């Protein structure tokens, strides 16, 4: 691994002498994205504000290329560290070009007059972030997605080696979130940037971060690769999730299961059951599902949402034990839904369940379900 360019050790951060998070150790490595996650108010922003020197550290040191940040000149720090902060600046009568070119601040002279070189760097930054077409637009009149890109261009224009961003994707729609982070990835590689950012979107953190730092209860709870951090059940624990679950493998969110005796039995599999489970959950109808192979597409959702779930080990045909259990639960339900339409040797048991349900007059079409349950 490369040497970290920005490094913090035993760092205590907080407001007015009161420590919000203590004993932080973090490092920003060129070519890598370090992402801070954690519940609201845990202090992600406090850490980032301290690194960007909006807050003084209460204890510990931050070093930039091996030198203590406190001993460096403002201008020298600004030549190495740039930021995209939360909150929308509302400068009056500034075009996007003006905003981007303000990133040249640490390079210009006493009066801040841009040289030819500064202009070229500004153009280059705008081209990299693909906002050239906004050059003449008033910064106050562009969309949120455009604004974040312009602010990113401004930071790039500062020619930093470390880029710090506080929740850069909040307020963006899904397209602009993906665009922004993909662009960032490209820049990290092409410019060998060390990036520290905070994110609320866990699914995105999992996909775009090289390392993740989890903040909670006044400390750094975990730090590692997404694979190390996103272990089964950890995210629920980190955020104190009680009414729902987070699928650590796929980064999916599910709500909580409707508990109680199941009224409906769902014969699913291969992903066919997922919309049915979610719909029953929304209608607050307790249901059972089966027989689902572990590792099946249906499995994580059925596990999160069903009141009862009958499973079978992966890669084997449905065995007799599972079948008996499923039959018993199914016959106590008032209706059976069977979104699964494809049957083969592995799920032959489910075909038998379906035949049994049809025989007993339990097999129901989804649109008749509501009426049936009212009776």
């Amino acid at each position, binding site marked *: 691994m490369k040497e970290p360019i920005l490094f913090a050790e035993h760092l205590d951060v907080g407001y007015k002498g009161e420590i919000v998070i203590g004993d932080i150790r973090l490092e920003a490595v060129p070519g890598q994205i370090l992402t801070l996650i954690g519940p609201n108010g845990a202090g992600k922003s406090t850490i980032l*504000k301290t690194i*960007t*020197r*909006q807050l003084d550290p209460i204890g510990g040191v931050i070093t930039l290329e091996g030198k203590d940040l406190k001993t460096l*000149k*403002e*201008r020298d*720090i*600004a*030549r190495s*560290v*740039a*930021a995209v*902060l939360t*909150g929308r*600046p*509302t*400068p*009056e*009568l*500034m075009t996007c*070009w*003006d*905003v981007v070119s*303000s*990133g040249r*601040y*640490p390079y*210009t002279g*006493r*009066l*801040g*007059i841009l040289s030819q070189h500064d*202009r070229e760097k500004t153009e280059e930054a705008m081209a990299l972030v693909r906002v050239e077409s906004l*050059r*003449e637009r008033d910064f*106050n*009149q562009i969309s949120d997605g455009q604004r974040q890109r312009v602010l990113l261009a401004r930071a790039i224009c*500062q020619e930093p080696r470390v880029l710090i961003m506080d929740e850069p994707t909040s307020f963006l729609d899904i397209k602009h979130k993906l665009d922004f982070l993909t662009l960032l990835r490209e820049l990290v590689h092409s410019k060998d940037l060390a990036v520290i950012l905070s994110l609320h979107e866990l699914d995105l953190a999992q996909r775009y971060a090289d390392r993740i730092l989890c903040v909670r209860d006044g400390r750094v709870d975990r730090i590692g690769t997404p694979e190390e951090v996103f272990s089964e059940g950890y995210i629920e624990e980190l955020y104190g999730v009680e009414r729902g679950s987070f699928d650590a493998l796929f980064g999916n969110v599910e709500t909580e299961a409707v508990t109680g005796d199941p009224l409906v039995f769902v014969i699913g599999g291969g992903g066919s059951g997922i919309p049915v489970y979610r719909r029953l959950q929304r209608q607050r109808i307790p249901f059972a599902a089966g027989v689902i192979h572990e590792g099946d597409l249906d499995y994580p959702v059925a596990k999160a949402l069903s009141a009862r779930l009958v499973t079978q080990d992966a890669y084997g045909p449905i065995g007799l034990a599972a079948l008996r259990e499923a039959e018993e639960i199914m016959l106590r339900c008032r209706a059976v839904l069977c979104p699964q339409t494809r049957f083969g040797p592995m799920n032959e048991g489910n075909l038998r369940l379906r035949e049994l349900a049809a025989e007993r007059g339990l097999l129901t079409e989804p649109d008749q379900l509501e009426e049936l349950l009212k009776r």
Partner: protein
Amino acid sequence: MEEKRRFRYTLCFVSLLIGMFILLVANVMVGSARLSIPQVLSILFTKTGDNAAIIWKVRMPRLLAAAILGGALSVSGFLLQTFFANPIAGPFVLGISSSAKLVVALTMIWTLSRGVAVGSVVLIAAAFVGAMLSMGAVLLVSNRLHSMALLIVCGVMIGYICSAVTDIVVTFASDSNIVNLHNWSLGSFSGKDWGDVTVLTIVVFLGLAGAFLLSKPMGAYQLGESYARSMGVNVKRFRVELILLTGVLSACVTAFAGPISFVGIAVPHLSRRLFNTSRPIVMIPACFLGGAVFCLLCDLIARTLFAPTELSISSVTAVFGVPVVIWMLLHRQGRSDRG
């Protein structure tokens, strides 16, 4: 694009200079004694003639004071607007002019009662103290309340208290010299001599030079304090420097011309629209020239409209300034609705 901007800036600066020149000439010519251009020229170059005294002792110092103090006032308004990120901040609405006025009035009465005549430098110092006091009060408020509207309300309140106290003090001070004090406390460019003009020119141009040197961090500050810091601005030092400069400029204006309303808001706004930018490096000279033109025009109107009765300069600046401010508020409202 940069060429287009440069062209616009040049055009605007040239227009302002021409406007200023015309108003300077008009201010010399028009008055109780009307002079023609040849007469004016001959007096200016020979310093002799029937009306030489009027021009050299009355009109010239007065118009120079109006131009320079008007410029200083609108630059101090621009600095305050940048500092508070609030387009309706200005030395008058934030109570800075009024509290400077109060301290100057107290100083004058105290020294007059002891039979000492004080120089203009002492008055500037007194005004500076007053300006800093209200600036301090406003800063305390702005640290506690993060509302722009409340900040302005608070400034206006400070202004009212100071004006009220000044009125009381002036009413009960019985010295005959108080008559002058009364005129001054309403705001006027009259009664300036060359000594005053020399002092105010030096102070204002030092202040302007300081402001101009701060135009780089000021530009960064327009993106907000945290961005300024991330670009390497020493924000603490910058804020102190900006406050001191604002104080010097508005103190100088108040010490010589009393409180003058709305120039500090209206002129920077008009200048921004005219130049279509808020870049400090352009706006500082632009506001200075704009303020000079505005005050020369207002002073011309103040002394000629109901001649021989002279209006207080504040009445005239308010008549022209307030519609601009209201228009600006409406315009901004529209923008934030769309945004």
